[in-house]
């Protein structure tokens, strides 16, 4: 593990970051390359339900959708994972058994992280014991913003240890970090502390994922790769609702990190309503006609 120098702040020029995103958004993705991107996006999705009123029934239905996104097209890829609260992990795990779809669990007193470390570690262990393949943790934004970078680092490392074999996604909650420099710094701390993925948001705070924030994080991943040769994954989450947005994110990934990151092991979308728009566009690209939203399941 690299022990980072917390005094270093990587400067980020926000004007140029936003310009770069604007330029990449002008890529024109057509025909077969569009269909490829849509299917890729579907395969990278963490189909998510994170509500207080979640029920076992709802989670089972979500898992059905994960396995068979659109009945009339059984050859479509399945999504990468379903993402649920720890208490729903076992239900989800049973529902996706034998499909290769992972179960991701949020943990560590999601979404605020406002609980003692011991509680957050127990929360993580519980999720993993229930069968979670992936753990989505939150960092202590309060500690980060008050400059306690060592604490943030140590906590991530502790959760990583608690994860065991489960993959760790570290949610930075970029909407609360205020500057791109902070996003960069939190990304570096998370990667150095053992994150397998870095993730923008819980989806409970606005703004959630944005493209400029994602670009800053992708560039952090690139620098980490240059330095260590290790590939860290990226997961923008929250606020990505349309197929067009999803393709724009994929363009960001392709042109920042390259082809090696264009699979579900290295890139995920955290989304609840994105799937149907992607499906609708896949049908449009395949048949040439738009279907009514009524044809797509609401799960």
């Amino acid at each position: 593990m690299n022990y980072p120098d917390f005094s270093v702040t990587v400067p980020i020029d926000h004007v140029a970051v936003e310009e770069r995103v604007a330029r990449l958004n002008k890529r024109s993705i057509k025909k077969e390359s569009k269909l490829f991107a849509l299917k890729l996006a579907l395969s990278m999705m963490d189909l998510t339900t994170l509500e207080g009123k979640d029920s076992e029934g709802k989670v089972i239905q979500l898992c059905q959708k994960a396995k068979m996104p659109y009945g009339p097209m059984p050859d479509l890829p399945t999504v990468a994972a379903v993402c649920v609260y720890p208490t729903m992990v076992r239900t989800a795990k049973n529902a996706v058994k034998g499909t290769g779809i992972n179960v991701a669990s949020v943990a560590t007193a999601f979404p605020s992280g406002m609980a003692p470390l011991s509680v957050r570690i127990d929360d993580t262990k519980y999720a993993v014991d229930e069968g979670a393949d992936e753990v989505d943790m939150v960092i202590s934004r309060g500690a980060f913003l008050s400059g306690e970078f060592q604490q943030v680092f140590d906590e991530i490392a502790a959760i990583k240890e608690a994860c065991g074999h489960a993959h760790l996604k570290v949610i930075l909650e970029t909407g609360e970090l205020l500057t791109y420099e902070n996003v960069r710094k939190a990304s570096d701390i998370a990667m150095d502390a053992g994150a397998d993925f870095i993730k923008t948001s819980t989806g409970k705070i606005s703004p959630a994922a944005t493209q400029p924030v994602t670009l800053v994080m992708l560039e952090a991943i690139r620098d980490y790769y240059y330095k260590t040769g290790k590939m860290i994954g990226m997961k923008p989450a929250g606020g990505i609702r349309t197929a067009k947005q999803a393709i724009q994110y994929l363009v960001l990934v392709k042109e920042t990190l390259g082809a090696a990151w264009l699979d579900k092991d290295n890139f995920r979308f955290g989304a609840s309503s994105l799937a149907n728009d992607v499906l609708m566009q896949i049908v449009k690209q395949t048949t040439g006609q738009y279907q009514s939203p009524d044809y797509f399941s609401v799960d």
Partner: protein
Amino acid sequence: MSETTNIKETYKPTSPNSKLDFASVWEYAPAPESASHAEVKDKYELFIGGKFVKPSSGNYFNSTNPANGEVITEFAEASKSDVNKAVKAARKAFEGEWSSISAKERGKYLYRIARMIQERAREFAVLESMDGGKPIRESRDVDIPLVAAHFFYYAGWADKLEYAFPGQKPEAVGVCGQIIPWNFPLLMLAWKIAPALACGNTVVLKPAETTSLTALKFAELVQEAGLPAGVVNIVTGAGETGAEIVNHKDIDKVAFTGSTGVGKLIQRSLAGTDKKFTLELGGKGAMIVFEDAPIDQAVEGIINAIFFNQGHVCCAGSRLLVQEGVADTVMQKLKDRMESLIVGDPLDKNTDVGAINSHGQFETINKYLKIALDEGADVYQSSCNIPDNGYFVRPTLLSNVSQSNRVVQEEIFGPVLTIQTFRTADEAVQKANNTPFGLAGGVWTDKGSKIFKVGSGLRSGVVWANTYNKFDPTSPFGGYKESGVGREGGLHGLGAYLKF
């Protein structure tokens, strides 16, 4: 085309150490901009006195699409007598109708032209890319919007000249001879014609022989706008036609944008005359990247500085000076970023780098690549695919070069960047200024005070901070030293078309 094939073999990247793979898995499908709405005639005449007239010699020359070598159309070759006719028409308009209408009416014509350009922006953009090889993304998002912006901006000044120069009684100069280059054909036309007309002058303009199409489309637009006959005259032809304009005794002012070599010839031939002149010539812009710069964004700025318009930009950032501590990082990131540039069909909406403008320029760039190899430079080229036909040069980075190398001293005017390192700010400024040119430069640092310190040390008409190649009609543009005389754009640009 055989030339491009040879290049593939001759200039293999000497250090293909890009770790990232931007080519496989997901390739963008072609996304060509439709050219069906862009009307091109088989042949274009000269635009003199408000009419399209045949050249007295009866000669025409071909205009080709540099991306595929196909002939697009023919342009008339203007001889001495045609230039004479154009100057007479301009004189007549200047002494007649154009001077009799009010300044406010003049402004209204310019506003009308600006709006008409906006209405036909797509057509102009497509034609600009077809004729000149620049990517449609640039002609659509940069060239044509700036053209309209220039006309809008100078339209506003037309009836406010007294306020721009209080107490100085500004008056129009008269007939202006204007010669423009091939790198930004319609934009350079706008830079020349908009301020000239706003100040009440009439013009005889010669576009470059490889890129005259949009100028003649503009002539059609001028006709439709109902501009009085003779206010704008457009004559096509090569250098000889330009010389006829410069040497014509009834021209009051010469405005030229082009190479320093030709600029010197013009200045020589103007010596001893009372013609006013502005010259906007070559450059070898230096970019200084400090260790404390936001590196990823600096790399993006460098890419825009040198690969914008295939490097056919007089103010291009063609020399990169990087502080030692980050030199390796910048080099690696630059190489990876170059790999992700899409080179190819200018009309494809995803193309980042289009075609080299002409066979002549293609040979010039390749000559310099050979010189670079002979001088011992390390040549890195993007491994991208380039089309088999047409004139294309891969984005190129030359390292292991120093101030004494020709590729560092001379303007290549192509997608070729040299990279050198420096240790102290003073050294960077010294190297940046160690050139006969002085058109533009860039500084990247996170520290504001350093921008001012270094920026004020640069002997350069334009200095960009943490960005590059940003243009706006309100901002003056022009060079120090051999990069030119006078300023275009902004309030300064008005002064060049007035006498007091």
